[in-house]
């Protein structure tokens, strides 16, 4: 009997069994790897598809963004116009109101002759309604109606200005501030100080208010040169008021009218430094009743920096006034005539800081046009803060001395602009 095969069978079966037992996990491992590889492939494919979809989506979004910015405007009036111009209703011109209010106190004594009364007061320095619009292609019109605590309601200006005359000519007519010097034709709220310099107030008679006609010519050359000539009832707000209050409403002989001439030039000294120089003469021909000569000089440093210091303005005007005064007795009868030669002027410097602040100082020398022994000198310091372009707080301290007792005065001024307020190039 051959027992070997029989003896070897269980052994072989055992070997196969052990082999199968040992080989089982290896077979499963091969399957798992394949599965994982397949899953990885699928995931990669899905990821790639997602990435492609994202890229397509991103490109579409970018294209939509670009299209939304690049596309020319829809066929509205803009597409056929040559410019985008802010809409203006022809029936409703630019309107603005300025509210200019102040508190002032004289610390010692009054200095009445330069408008510094004794004591303390709140005042509405001015509430000005300003209206401006083109009238037609050849004419522009504007009006400034003002009311204040001191002077009540008044039409400060109401004038027409040509816009299309040839040869660089412009004609202005109506009631307006005549082109005298620099600050005398600025509105109160546009001044760099809380008050008009006493010298201008006294010798010109407040702002250069007038009723008349003015022609100006801009020389067609590279340097700026403008010549102005005018004829008026009179020049000076106080004189105009007197004239219109006397019952004749300003009517008078031709040689009693006031005539004016003013050359005005400007030079860029460097890129950041410039100067303006002007001269003015106005007079009343009959009896040479009034002759006023004035020179004005303004130097500006405008560095255009973004730092703390942002610029400096130095301005000065000097006036010589020769005027004939009628002397009357207490009954109003003319008893004589007297001619006075008086002078006055101011100089100021204002430095600008950090877009919101400015700090300045002014010295003013003024003689009364008619009174004897009424010289006033005023030294002032002022600081201005503008919380925005449309409101301003200013504090000014004045010390006055001269033929009256010395006086200290401080004023706090608060000014705000409602609407589109701009007096334009002349009050830059």
């Amino acid at each position, binding site marked *: 009997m051959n027992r070997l095969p029989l003896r070897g069978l269980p052994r072989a079966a055992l070997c196969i069994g052990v082999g199968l037992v040992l080989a089982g996990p290896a077979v499963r491992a091969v399957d798992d790897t394949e599965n994982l590889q397949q899953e990885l492939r699928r995931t990669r494919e899905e990821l790639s598809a997602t990435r492609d979809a994202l890229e397509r989506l991103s490109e579409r979004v970018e294209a939509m963004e670009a299209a939304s*910015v*690049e596309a020319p405007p829809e066929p509205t009036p803009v597409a056929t116009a*040559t410019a*985008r111009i802010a809409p203006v209703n022809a029936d409703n011109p630019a309107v603005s109101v300025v509210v200019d209010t102040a508190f002032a106190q004289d610390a010692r004594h009054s200095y009445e002759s330069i408008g510094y009364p004794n004591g303390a007061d709140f005042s509405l320095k001015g509430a000005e309604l300003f209206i401006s619009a083109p009238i037609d292609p050849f004419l522009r019109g504007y009006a400034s109606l003002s009311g204040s605590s001191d002077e009540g309601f008044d039409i400060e200006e109401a004038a027409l200005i040509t816009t299309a005359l040839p040869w660089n000519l412009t004609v202005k007519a109506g009631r307006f501030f005549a082109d005298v010097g620099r600050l005398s034709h600025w509105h109160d709220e546009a001044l760099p100080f809380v008050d008009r310099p006493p010298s201008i107030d006294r010798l010109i008679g407040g702002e250069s208010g007038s009723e008349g006609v003015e022609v100006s010519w*801009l020389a067609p050359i590279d340097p*700026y040169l403008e010549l102005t000539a005018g004829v008026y009832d009179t020049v000076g707000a106080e004189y105009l008021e007197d004239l219109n209050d006397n019952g004749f409403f300003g009517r008078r002989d031709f040689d009693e009218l006031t005539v004016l001439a003013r050359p005005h030039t400007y030079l860029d000294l460097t890129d950041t430094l410039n100067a303006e120089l002007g001269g003015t003469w106005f007079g009343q021909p009959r009896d040479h009743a009034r002759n006023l000569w004035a020179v004005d000089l303004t130097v500006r440093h405008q560095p255009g920096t973004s730092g703390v210091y942002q610029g400096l303005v130095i301005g000065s005007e000097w006036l010589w006034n020769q005027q004939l005064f009628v002397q009357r007795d207490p009954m109003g009868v003319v008893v004589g005539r007297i001619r006075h030669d008086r002078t006055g002027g101011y100089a100021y410097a204002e430095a600008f800081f950090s877009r919101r602040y400015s700090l300045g100082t002014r010295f003013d020398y003024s003689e009364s046009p008619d009174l004897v022994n009424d010289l006033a000198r005023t030294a002032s310091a002022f600081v201005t803060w503008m*919380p925005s372009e449309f409101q301003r707080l200013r504090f000014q301290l004045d010390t006055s001395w001269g033929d009256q007792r010395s006086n200290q005065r401080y004023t706090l001024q608060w000014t705000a602009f409602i609407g589109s307020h701009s007096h334009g*190039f002349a009050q830059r």
Partner: protein
Amino acid sequence: MALPSASPHRILSCIACALWLALAATPAAAVLRVVASTPDVADITSQIGGERVSVMTIAEGSQDPHKVPVKPSFVTKLNRADALVVQGLNLEHAFVPALLEAARNARILPGAVGYIDASLYVKPLEVPSSQSRVQGELHPLGNPHYNLDPEQGLPMARAIAEGLERVDPAGADAYRAGLARFSQLLERKISEWKTLAAPLRGLKVVSYHRDLPYLASRYGLEIVGTIEVKPGIPATPGHLQELLATMEREKVKVIIREISYDPGLARSLAERTGAQVAEISALAGGLGAPGYIGSLEANLRALLAAAQAGSSG
């Protein structure tokens, strides 16, 4: 020896000769005298117009376009100009209307042939729905700082070229060629900048003035605040405290200061938050780079440098 006497006839002849020589020696004048309100539109006009135009610019690159001084010397230039090119959307409200009032030149008044508005084909962003000044100094026609977005250079150039052609029809071919040349150059740069600007996408920034919506939209910047309280309204202490809190919450890494604005506030905020300050110019040439395209690139590189420093800091 006596000098020969100078008769009046001889003197007049000499003067006439001198005048003739002076006139003859004067180089041929350019066809169009153009005044441009900003360096951006000035450069594009020069590139399109070439030798057919002589361009004078009012605002300088380093200036705040809202506060350009009104100088009488600009009046004489405007008086004799054949065309005025403006960036438009009321950007120049602080100086162009006052200058035009004094310039006595009806040819360049708004709506006239010589008034060239570069914004004509730009689609404005942030057009206000109300004009209340509670919202600050709003521009009624929309945000006017579109020039900072390179893509807007193309519609700007188109409007300028068409304007020049309107004023000077004889030069139409030259202006069209100039437009094609400029547009090609700008498009090539835009393509380069698109790749270069990739790191800016999603970057949270604070700017000084609200003048970045076009630029932000182009490069994907996220503006989380401005140093100004509202457009044109300077910062207050309370607003700065709120801005600091916002910057910390939003993890703002870059403050963008337009060079015409106060460097102190941006620096102070940067010191307190660890953010980087990127100095850009709202008008061409402010950073010293030449021309409109050069300025756009200088701005982009300043942003990239700050973004990189902010992310590594």
